[in-house]
């Protein structure tokens, strides 16, 4: 089973990378872009049952994969909808 985790900087945290990319997009002819936030995408291949794994994966998301002081995360099944 494949699970995905998307980690993004919290709204209150300055994202200078996102700001730099937004500027570049403006220079390349898209002044409509209001903001860009850059995060991290993790694809996790894991054996087992989703309902049993999910709480354990949430635990790892909080302790390792994201830092709750500065980041939010979303955990989902990466195969759904395929």
């Amino acid at each position: 089973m494949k699970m995905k985790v998307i980690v993004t900087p919290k709204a209150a945290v300055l994202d200078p990378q996102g700001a730099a990319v937004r500027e570049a997009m403006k220079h390349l002819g898209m002044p409509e872009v209001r903001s860009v936030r850059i995060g991290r995408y993790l694809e996790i291949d894991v054996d087992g049952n989703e309902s049993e794994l999910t709480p354990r994966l949430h635990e790892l998301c909080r302790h390792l994969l994201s830092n709750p002081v500065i980041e939010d995360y979303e955990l989902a099944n990466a195969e759904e909808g395929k």
Partner: protein
Amino acid sequence: MTKFAVVQFPGSNCDQDCVGAINSLEGARAEFVWHKETSLDAFDAIILPGGFSYGDYLRCGAIAQFSPIMQAVIKDAAAGKLVIGICNGFQILCEAGMLPGALVRNRSLHFVCDMATTRVEVPHSPFTIGCPEGTLLRLPVAHGEGCFFADEQTLRELDENRQVILRYVDENGKVVPEANPNGSVQNIAGMCNRERNVFGLMPHPDRACDERLGSGDGVKIFRSMMEAIGRNRTQAA
């Protein structure tokens, strides 16, 4: 003799500087401790040095916080032992939850390598004995992720408990944006926990222990730790 442990993680690169700095002080002795060790009982103080532990993968310090030695660091810190985290060591302390807040990418997006002036905000910490409030310490900085961030509530608590030990200032000792090398909130350069025995800072006292290298101010921090440990021993005796 005051014994310092300098923890080596895979990717630490200021471990040699720390050991060299400590061993140049009379009455102090530093030894390397590999991150797979599980006890720091033989030491009076712990240094988490700078570098790029685990290649800074995921986030700076994110993986090092789970190295076996960190259980000993957490246990000894809870018992009151002095712990200082320098640069990557500061990032590890924040990731491990031993200090509040987090260190994120410099506002400029550039790696900064420069001499910074910092101002002592708290004279009575175990890390600033002999440095009256307002003392200026010239310490080098070298980091890409040194922008300290904490939410409003945390910043209020840091202020109320006087946990901010060092701020970036200009040559006149003024907190100004131009003196802030990385965009840290309130120009915070170094801070301690509530109990005042765990200290994290982005500047490198280990690289400022010899006037010939541009500054000897880092010695004041290490000597202060030795003094604090000495006082504790006297009290215990």
